[in-house]
């Protein structure tokens, strides 16, 4: 019997028993939906992390006091670390051979006031003038902090788009902002960056690092040193060079671990992938269990179908259907059934991720290879679990099959 006939027959049977087919396929639908949703979210997050979170500027890494800390124990131990100070920045800037630029910045938070308007908890960053080239912020209007501002410890600031919008009606250039008891003149506004996981990235104020240290105090704050390597392929070597310099400055013996951290886009991304890899593995495991359960349900319903249609099988055999014709008919039916489950699962997942994208800030991207694999695997499940019922049907004796009601 041609395969086309079998497929036609299988789809017709599915149409005839819509509710039963749906109930049968529930396990497979849930499995495929779970898999596709998880893979979509991971894929979406991956792109998001790569584009937004782990994007520090090209060839840039940071030397910081803490680096990436993933456990409470490490965090407590890291509290004893030395602060990274202006001296470290100057040493690295003077001695790093593989760096094209070395900048530094320090962070704090403050409420801002301008005229009668006020905003709360804005990130204040003291930076070196070259940070505009190293970091991802870009000048939208006005200018960034200059070398003169830096050396004179000027009271000037470069503000994010949100700050500009919230504090000023017109152009903020030349206006003043007050925080920490000091008044700063706005010299530039950054181009809008957007949001990451629903958090705005435009709520910041940059002031010269020298001014920052004067207000906050030289020894009370640690800073991050941003290093831009000469070329992308020198990233690793530049990091090694920086590490060596820092270890020498901190007089670390050979056996002791670093008492500072080096953070790059790659290291953040690796941490992230480590996490999503675990999530993906759990998802695949859950899916596999669902698929086996779904497959057994398909097998059960196919066995019921064979019993129910024994008479039909008898008729077909009396008209010349060979074993392989009957085998094919029921196998194709099982595969069509479970593939339909896979397709419904993919569609459900697609709709689900669209709804999620519309209502939350969780990003998702539907990866085509995963869709293809999910549909193929669900078809394969039907094939595997259809073999026994189909061969049972094929082996039926024509006479007793004809006698069955």
């Amino acid at each position, binding site marked *: *019997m*041609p395969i086309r*006939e079998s497929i036609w027959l299988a789809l*017709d049977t599915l149409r*005839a028993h819509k509710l039963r087919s749906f109930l049968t396929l529930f396990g497979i639908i849930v499995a495929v939906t779970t898999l596709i949703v998880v893979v979509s979210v991971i894929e979406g997050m991956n792109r998001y992390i790569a584009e937004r979170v782990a994007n520090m500027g090209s060839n840039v890494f940071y030397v910081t006091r803490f680096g990436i800390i993933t456990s409470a124990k490490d965090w407590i131990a890291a509290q004893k670390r030395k602060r990274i100070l202006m001296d470290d920045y100057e040493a690295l800037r003077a001695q790093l051979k593989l760096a094209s630029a070395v900048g530094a910045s320090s962070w704090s938070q403050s409420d801002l006031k301008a005229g009668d308007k006020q905003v709360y908890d804005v990130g204040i960053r003291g930076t070196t003038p070259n940070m505009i080239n190293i970091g991802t912020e870009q000048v939208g209007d006005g200018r960034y902090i200059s070398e003169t501002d830096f050396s004179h410890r000027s009271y000037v600031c470069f503000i994010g788009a949100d700050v500009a919008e919230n504090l000023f009606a017109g152009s903020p250039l030349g206006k003043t902002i007050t925080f920490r008891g000091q008044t700063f003149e706005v010299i530039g506004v950054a181009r809008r960056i957007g949001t990451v996981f629903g958090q705005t990235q435009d709520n910041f104020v940059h002031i010269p690092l020298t001014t920052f240290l004067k207000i906050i105090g030289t020894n009370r704050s640690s800073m991050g040193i941003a290093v831009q390597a000469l070329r992308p392929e020198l990233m690793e070597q530049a990091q090694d060079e920086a590490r060596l310099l820092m270890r020498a400055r901190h007089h670390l013996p050979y056996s002791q671990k670093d008492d500072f951290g080096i953070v790059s886009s790659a290291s953040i991304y690796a941490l992230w992938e480590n996490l999503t890899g675990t999530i993906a593995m759990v998802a695949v495991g859950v899916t596999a269990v669902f698929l086996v359960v779904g497959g057994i349900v398909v097998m059960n319903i196919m066995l019921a179908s064979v019993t129910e249609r024994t*008479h*039909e099988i*008898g*008729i*077909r*055999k*009396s*008209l*010349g*259907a*060979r*074993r*392989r*014709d009957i085998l094919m008919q029921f196998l194709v039916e099982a595969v069509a059934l479970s593939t339909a489950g896979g397709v419904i699962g993919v569609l459900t997942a697609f709709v689900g991720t669209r709804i999620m994208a519309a209502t939350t800030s969780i990003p998702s991207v539907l990866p085509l290879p995963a869709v293809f694999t999910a549909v193929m695997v669900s078809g394969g499940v039907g094939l595997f679990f259809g073999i026994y019922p189909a061969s049972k049907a094929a082996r039926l004796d*024509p*006479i007793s099959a*004809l006698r069955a009601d």
Partner: protein
Amino acid sequence: MASLSAQVKGGIEDKAVPPDGLLIKTLNLWKTYLMGSVEIHAVCGVDLEIQRNEYVAIMGPSGSGKSTLMNLVGCLDTPSSGDYWINRRLVSTMSDDELAYIRNKEIGFVFQTFNLLPRASALHNVELPLIYNGTPADARIQLAKESLRMVDLEDRMHHKPNELSGGQRQRVAIARALVNHPSILLADEPTGNLDSATGQEIMGLFDRLHERGNTIVLVTHEHDIAQYAHRVIHIRDGKIAKDERTR
């Protein structure tokens, strides 16, 4: 000694392929079932010959073994011993799939309960045997329509069995049996589920098919029906009790 050698010689000759025109030939056909430890002989050494274009009725009370014989003749079952040729092919030693091929090519079944697929149209029911021998779709539809025209049901081809009367259903079944131009038409109580007027109508159709050159084997327990045939074979206790030409 003489009789023994004659038997052996006869055996060898009988083993030879039957001549053309002898559609069915059985030689000492047995079918034995095992019920627990008791052997039941349903068919005991039947020798049967049916020529092309014969119209034969096989008669017998229930339990006589006529159904078993019909299953053997229709290649739905295999004999416990003995030989059976259909259209010069030895089928008694064939495998399941080879028998399926013979059923498809050589035999057209007409059953008491019609045995149509309930969810398929008349046309699709008639197409079925052609599907199983790989006839391409367009040729298949053509042949199925011709076959339905032969039983005057062309205008009902898109109806499903439950939209047809009993007589119409049996005519669809006959169209299905004929669509592959089989060597024999094997009808098992074809009027058993029909009222007598419709039964006569179906028997009239069989008469016409016989006139056109079809070979018909009819299994029945009704004398009224058996009288349509030209030869009546009476089965009793698994043996041929009487074989008479009635016309």
